[in-house]
């Protein structure tokens, strides 16, 4: 039987990679990524399922799934030329992706599937820190966090619960880590660029710390998310992960401006 050995959430600021290269030991983000990395190492996963929202690199309005499983044998990224970080080849895990796709569809999650992927920074930045040298295979689970209508957060919570049930029902022996990629609240390119919706960030953080995941899912309406800026739908990836942790409370939740970092022990 497969096992969920760890759940975590981290943001994916591309600038962090260069900031650390230019001034190591100075950023809060570096310390927090290291902290999360230590828990990942300790949990000894064999594979990572990464819940992420593509930023118009793999998907566009011509074909835009609400939920999609990445089933590629390998994929490259980040594709964006403006991204100041190394390029990687990330291995997939086709048997897990295939089994999750089937299990999900039979559980009434009508997900899309992609056998080819162009990875964007949001998928690769967390792996740069948590999966250095890309030794672990990764199954991307995409949610649409960017284009209205977003999936309901309550639906994402159920998606996470399904992923947990899948892992425990799957006949692989893999130790699985589930990682959410995304900020709590941020705007890139909108008129409020640079402003952070601190009250919303504090609300998210408080509900996570208390383990009130369903309350968070109910409060994370599209309207509330939109008010916090155009990248704030990435919270849906966090909500998805909370659906998989059961009653476990996070070992820690740390906030750095609009970015959140957290780890759950689930084994």
């Amino acid at each position, binding site marked *: 039987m497969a096992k969920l050995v760890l759940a975590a959430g981290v943001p994916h600021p591309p*600038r962090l990679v260069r900031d650390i290269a230019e001034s190591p030991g100075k950023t809060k983000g570096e310390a927090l990524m290291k902290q999360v990395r230590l828990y990942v190492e300790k949990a000894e996963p064999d594979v990572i399922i990464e819940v992420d929202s593509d930023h118009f690199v793999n998907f566009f*309005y011509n074909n835009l799934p609400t939920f999609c499983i990445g089933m590629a044998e390998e994929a490259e990224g980040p594709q964006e030329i403006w991204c100041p970080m190394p390029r990687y080849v990330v291995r997939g895990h086709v048997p897990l992706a295939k089994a999750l796709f089937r299990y999900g569809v039979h559980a009434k999650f009508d997900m899309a599937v992609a056998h080819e992927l162009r990875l964007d920074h949001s998928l690769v930045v967390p792996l740069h820190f948590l999966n250095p040298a890309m030794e672990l295979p990764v199954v991307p689970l995409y949610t649409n966090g960017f284009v209205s209508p977003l999936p309901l957060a309550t639906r994402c919570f159920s998606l996470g619960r399904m992923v947990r049930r899948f892992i425990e029902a799957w006949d692989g022996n893999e130790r699985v880590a589930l990682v959410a990629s995304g900020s709590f609240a941020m705007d890139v390119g909108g008129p409020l660029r640079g402003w952070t919706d601190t009250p919303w960030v504090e609300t998210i953080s408080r509900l996570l710390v208390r383990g009130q995941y369903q309350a968070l899912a109910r409060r994370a309406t599209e309207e509330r998310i939109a008010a916090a800026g*155009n990248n704030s739908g990435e919270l849906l990836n966090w909500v998805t992960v909370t659906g998989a942790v059961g009653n476990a409370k996070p070992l820690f939740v740390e906030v750095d401006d609009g970015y959140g970092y957290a780890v759950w022990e689930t084994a």
Partner: protein
Amino acid sequence: MSTYLINKILYLTDNDADFRKRIKEDPEATLRAFRLSKEEHEALTSGAVGRLYQMGVHTFLLNHLSRYELFGVNRDNYLSRIREGLAYDPRFEQGNMPVQYFVKE
């Protein structure tokens, strides 16, 4: 009015190296393939970020105008342009354009 084509132009700029080269070198000829409305064409080619925003162009994609410095938009004027025509909001005071990185091709 659909903003699909403008979103598509911005998406291609970020994802397609050949398109990026063409839109930089010969924007008029490149845009001809897109059948933009007169209003869309004028707003895009004059770098009227605020108008494009109010038409409903996706802001994450709109930001590519500043990343790739298209149609006179850059990181120094992007925020003031997108705020054109909006009522003053005290949150603008906290807004600044963080460093964006550009990779030379």
